C-alpha cells in the first residue's frame, strides 16, 4: 500500500518536472519547483529518510524558492523560445535515458535487504553507534562523528559558496550611466501594507526560531541537526525581512555579523577537531574531549552541530541579503 503510494508520488514528480521544463514562464517554473520539492520530501519520508526529508523541507520549499525568486526579480522572468538544436538535444537525452534504464535492470530490486549497499559499512555503523557514541539517531552519529571529515568538507564547500556570492556582489558595478555604487537604492518596505500576513508572521517568527533551536539540539534523538536547524533559523530571518523590509532586517542582524557567523561556524568545527588533536587524539576525534569517551563524543557532536548550524545560517542569510539588496538595473 505504501509502495503504491510511493509510485503515485513519483509519477506526480515526473509530471511536475515535465511541466517545469516545458513552461516558458520562469516564475511559474519556480513555483512548480517548490511543489516538486514538497513531493520529493514526501518521497524521502516514505523511503525512511526522515532527516533528509526534514532538510529538503527546510531548504527546498522555503529558501530555494526565495533565492530563485530573488534572482528572477533581478533578471526578468521570461524565457525566449528558441528552436536552435532542440532535436539534437532530444535525441541525446532519449539515447541516454535508454542507456540508463537498460542499466537499471542490473540493479537490485527496490527494498532488497541483500543489496550490496547494505553489506559493507552500514551494518557496522548501526551496530557500533549505541556502544561508541550512544545517541539514538544513527544519521547524526555518522554525520558528525564517524564521517566527520566528510562533513567538514561539506561545511567548507558551503562556506566557500557563501564567500563566493559575497565576492560576486561586493564588486562595485561599473555602469556607464547611472549613479555609482548605490547598494540599497529602493528601501523595500516589505509587506507592510498587508496587515494580516504581517501580524500573523510576526506571531510566528519566535515559534520558528524556537523550532529551529529544538531541531538543532534534538538532532541527537530525533530527525534534525545543524544543517536543518541552520536552514530553519535562516528561514525565520528571511520571513522577518519579507515582512519588515530589507533594511530593518539588516539592522537586526547586520552583514558584518553574518560574515562573522559564516567564518565562526566553520572555525568552530575546525577548532573542535584541533582541540581533539591537542588533547592527544586524532583530528576530529571527540573521545578525548572529556574523561569519559562517550561524554566526549556527545560534547563533540553538540559543538560540531552548532558550528554547522551557525555556518549554514550565516551563508543562507548572506546570500539572501545579497540578492534582495541588489537593485534591478
Amino acid at each position, binding site marked *: 500500500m*505504501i509502495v503504491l503510494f510511493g509510485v*503515485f508520488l513519483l509519477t*506526480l514528480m515526473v*509530471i*511536475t518536472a515535465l*511541466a517545469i521544463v516545458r513552461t516558458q*514562464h520562469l*516564475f*511559474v517554473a519556480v*513555483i*512548480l519547483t*517548490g*511543489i516538486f520539492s*514538497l*513531493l520529493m*520530501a*514526501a518521497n524521502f*519520508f*516514505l523511503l525512511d529518510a*526522515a532527516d533528509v*526529508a*526534514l532538510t529538503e*523541507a*527546510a531548504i527546498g*520549499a*522555503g529558501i530555494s*524558492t*526565495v533565492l530563485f*525568486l530573488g534572482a*528572477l*526579480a533581478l533578471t*526578468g*522572468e*521570461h524565457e525566449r523560445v528558441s528552436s536552435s538544436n532542440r532535436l539534437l538535444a532530444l535525441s541525446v537525452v532519449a539515447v541516454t535515458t535508454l542507456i540508463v534504464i537498460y542499466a537499471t535492470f542490473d540493479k537490485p530490486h527496490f527494498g532488497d535487504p541483500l543489496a550490496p549497499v547494505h553489506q559493507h559499512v552500514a551494518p557496522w555503523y548501526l551496530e557500533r553507534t549505541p556502544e561508541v557514541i550512544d545517541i539514538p539517531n544513527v544519521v547524526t552519529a555518522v554525520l558528525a562523528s564517524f564521517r566527520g571529515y566528510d562533513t567538514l568538507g561539506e561545511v567548507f564547500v558551503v562556506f566557500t559558496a557563501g564567500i563566493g556570492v559575497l565576492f560576486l556582489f561586493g564588486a562595485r558595478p561599473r555602469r556607464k550611466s547611472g549613479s555609482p555604487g548605490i547598494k540599497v537604492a529602493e528601501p*523595500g518596505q*516589505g*509587506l507592510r501594507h*498587508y496587515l494580516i*500576513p504581517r501580524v500573523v*508572521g510576526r506571531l*510566528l517568527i519566535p*515559534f*520558528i526560531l524556537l*523550532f529551529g533551536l*529544538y*531541531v538543532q539540539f*534534538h538532532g541527537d534523538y*530525533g*530527525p*534534525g541537526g545543524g544543517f*536543518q536547524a541552520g536552514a*530553519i533559523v535562516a*528561514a525565520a530571518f*528571511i*520571513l522577518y525581512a*519579507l*515582512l519588515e523590509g530589507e533594511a530593518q532586517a539588516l539592522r537586526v542582524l547586520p552583514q558584518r555579523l553574518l560574515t562573522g557567523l559564516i567564518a565562526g561556524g566553520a572555525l568552530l568545527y575546525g577548532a573542535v577537531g584541533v582541540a581533539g588533536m591537542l588533547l592527544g587524539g586524532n583530528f576530529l576525534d571527540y573521545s578525548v574531549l572529556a574523561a569519559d569517551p562517550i561524554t566526549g563524543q556527545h560534547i563533540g557532536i553538540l559543538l560540531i552541530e552548532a558550528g554547522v548550524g551557525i555556518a549554514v545560517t550565516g551563508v543562507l542569510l548572506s546570500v539572501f541579503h545579497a540578492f534582495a539588496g541588489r537593485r*534591478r538595473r
Partner: protein
Amino acid sequence: MALALGRALLGPSVYDRVLAANMFGTKTVLLLSVIAFLYGRPDFLDLALAYALINFIGVLAVLEFIRRRASNDTAINGIDP
C-alpha cells in the same frame, strides 16, 4: 488519501499556481502526519511541523515578488489596475 488533487497544480493562471502550491503544502503536512502514524513513529511529526511553518514563508515570498513586480515594472504585466 485523496491526494488525487495534485492535478490541481496544472491550473491555468499564475495565481492559481500559487494557490495550488499552498494547498499542496497543506496536503503534504496532512499526509505526513497520517503516514507517521501508519508507520507508528509519532516522533516524526516534527517534519510536518517544519512543513507547516516553512511553506508559509515560501508563499509570502511569492507574494512579495508579485507586489514588487506590480509596483516596479508595468511593462511585463499587461493588465495593470
